[in-house]
């Protein structure tokens, strides 16, 4: 084959054109633009928040598609092509330095996002997400509106649920500690409220609890458990001051359930995705021993001792 400039240039175009046709234009015209069952158009402020998301490169750390092998945020709904029909540019993403955000809406109430955007370490002590305080309140508001819309109609449902419970939580908080504690505990299913922590307090257990507390709770509840962590100024109702739980019928079971399930409507997130059972008991007991000063760990009623347990003192 004798290669000449025109052969190379024309040849390149002859190769390029069909490839563009097959690999880009064909899918472009054949992919359906029918909306998925959760899709809805974005509002003006959500669109504005999306712009801020694009301009500040959130997409380099966050994907917006859930795969069928996922366990993290949003794993309940695998992505569909119909979710993206209005996305320009697409924000599918290629890296999960942070979690997937495609179902972020309603995962947390707005005040959690405010604290988190101002400084992610406020609510997530070991985060490596950048701080966004420089954006100013208005743009953080738009960004929040956008992330709260991720998941479209499912997000709207979750956001609405957050708002409903927020109203009740605020009401209880404003009625004073006695009423607040009563209200929070009335939300815990009864068998749990009577369940003591089945595992006795050990040195190792408290150490583990400490480690978990530092990594997950300290930004809100604070180093001494008084609810005065750095996130506190942005959250309402503010993080719980654990000392008010003393002599108010607290049990290991209540702590376990609240940490596992969170308190929707408040900034208190659920930890069931991130902490296994042992870790939840451990951090609960750490809070009970160190901040509440009352622990029922290893108390009655309890079942057969787990095989690792040290001898019980009768």
């Amino acid at each position, binding site marked *: *084959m004798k*290669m000449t*400039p025109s052969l*190379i240039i024309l*040849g*390149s175009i002859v*190769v*390029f054109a069909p*490839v*563009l046709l097959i*690999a*880009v234009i064909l*899918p*472009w015209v*054949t*992919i359906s633009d029918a909306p998925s069952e959760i899709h809805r158009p974005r509002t003006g402020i959500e669109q504005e928040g999306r712009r801020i998301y*694009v*301009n*500040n*490169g*959130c*997409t*380099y*750390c966050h*994907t917006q*598609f859930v795969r069928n*092998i996922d*366990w*993290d*945020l949003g794993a309940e709904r695998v*992505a*569909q*092509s119909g*979710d*993206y*029909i*209005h*996305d*320009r*540019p*697409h*924000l*599918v*993403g290629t*890296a*999960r*330095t942070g979690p997937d955000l495609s179902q972020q809406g309603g995962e947390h109430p707005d005040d959690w996002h405010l604290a988190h955007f101002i400084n*992610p*370490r406020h609510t*997530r002590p*070991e*985060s*490596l997400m*950048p*701080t966004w*305080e*420089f*954006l100013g309140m208005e743009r953080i508001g738009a960004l929040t509106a956008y992330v709260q819309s991720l998941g479209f109609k499912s997000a709207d449902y979750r956001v609405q649920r957050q708002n409903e419970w927020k109203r009740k939580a605020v009401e209880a908080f404003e009625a004073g500690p006695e009423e607040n504690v009563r209200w929070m505990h009335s939300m815990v299913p009864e068998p749990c409220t009577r369940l003591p922590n089945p595992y006795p307090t050990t040195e190792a257990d408290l150490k583990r609890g400490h480690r978990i507390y530092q*990594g997950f709770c300290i930004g809100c509840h604070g180093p001494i458990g008084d609810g005065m962590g750095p996130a506190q100024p942005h959250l309402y109702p503010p993080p719980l001051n654990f000392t008010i739980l003393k002599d108010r019928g607290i049990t290991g079971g209540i702590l376990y359930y609240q940490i596992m399930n969170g308190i929707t409507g408040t900034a208190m997130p659920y930890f069931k995705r*991130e902490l296994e059972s042992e870790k939840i008991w451990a951090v609960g007991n750490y809070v009970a021993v160190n901040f509440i000063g009352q622990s029922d760990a290893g108390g009655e009623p309890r079942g057969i001792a787990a095989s690792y347990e040290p001898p019980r003192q009768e």
Partner: protein
Amino acid sequence: MTLRFLKDEPYGTTRAFFLSSALWFVTGALMGLTDATHLSAPELLAPNVSWLTFGRIRPVHTTTMIFGFVGTGLLGAAHYMIPTLLRTSLFSERLGKLSLWVWNLSIAAGGITLMAGYSQGREYAEWIWPVDIGILAAFLLMFWNFFQTAQRREERILYVSVWYIFAALVFTWFIYFFGNAVWNPGSGAITGMPDAILAWFYGHGVVGLFLTPLAVAIAYYVIPIATRSPLYSHTLSLIGFWTILVIYTHIGTHHLLQTPVPTWLKVLSISGSIGMIVPVMTVLVNLWLTMRGRLGYLHADIGGKFVMAGLVWYILTCLQGPLQALPVIQRVTHLNNWVIAHAHMGVLGFSGIIALGGIYFILPRVTGRPIYSQRLADIQYWLVLLGMAGFFTVLTAAGLVQGHSWINGEVVYRTLPQLHPYLVVRASIGLLLVSASFIGLYNIFMSIYGTRFSRNTP
């Protein structure tokens, strides 16, 4: 004034490209170090300074490295290879310099606007519309210059490197034009899943049809000269050339295998990714049979040495590439630092090191004297090689930690503390590359301008 910037002097264009490339290398490396620092300690470096935030610096880093450092270096070499291989002189040095000014100013404007918070959001296509136009214009000017040079050629037979350079310019122009959706100035994108497909057609094309063919052109040029033996086979050259154009173009969807794009497109991209072994191996076998038994010559030449190292990274990248295009592998490797390791191996290890090889090989030929310091170039060689190997190891390891944790049900947040030591080591390795870039800048600057000092250095 302008005319001084566009001074007409033999090989002036190539020299100016090389110097620009060295400057962009320093800039890009500093941006990379900034990002690596953010990832190791998010509030260490000016946490609330908008233009320094991770999300804004990262695209500046990638585009500066791809277009600025590697792209400029490779294009500079092309401005030397085209006239030399065609036995004529460059059609217009002035035009060459003009194209470089348009090119450099576009890259600079792209970086500044990104830091100011104007982005189009798609990887490697973040630059806003006016910058895209500048880049397209620069490519057109370069193409015109090459084309006119070819029209005036004394040599009737076109050497392989010339094929690759022409094809790279044609493909890159179209891929850039379509990939940036230039007809939609505001968004630079189309809508929905088709936009993801288009964006990765582009993202893949930028490394595969801009950097790769130009780097291969340098390898084809340097290896026979440095080893003093003729190219092994014309047929292999032909096969390698046409197959890369056909195959590399349509496999961009392998970046989207886990998203809801049509299955037939995924199948096409996976089979094409495996098929990439054909163009890569024909080129490498062709070059290997050319240099076989003559590695001594190659290593005696500092440029040849860089090119050889780049080719080794090319093999590794292109063995890893097809592997990680397989869905079973991507269950673990997708979305984490594994891919970042691959990206550095392709852009820095392969095309970046070959660009440096081209620069050091060609510099003496365009300045008429040896490079300023052989020793500094040697030090740079080892720093880049060590840095690259370090990056590969630590990022791959980090990626495996992430991928396996996730698949076992650990959430992203839980893996962050596990990731931390890797990210710190990665930032420290970045220091090696930053030093390498400064050494390179000094050496290249002195090779071009330092006539007074160059005589008494080793």
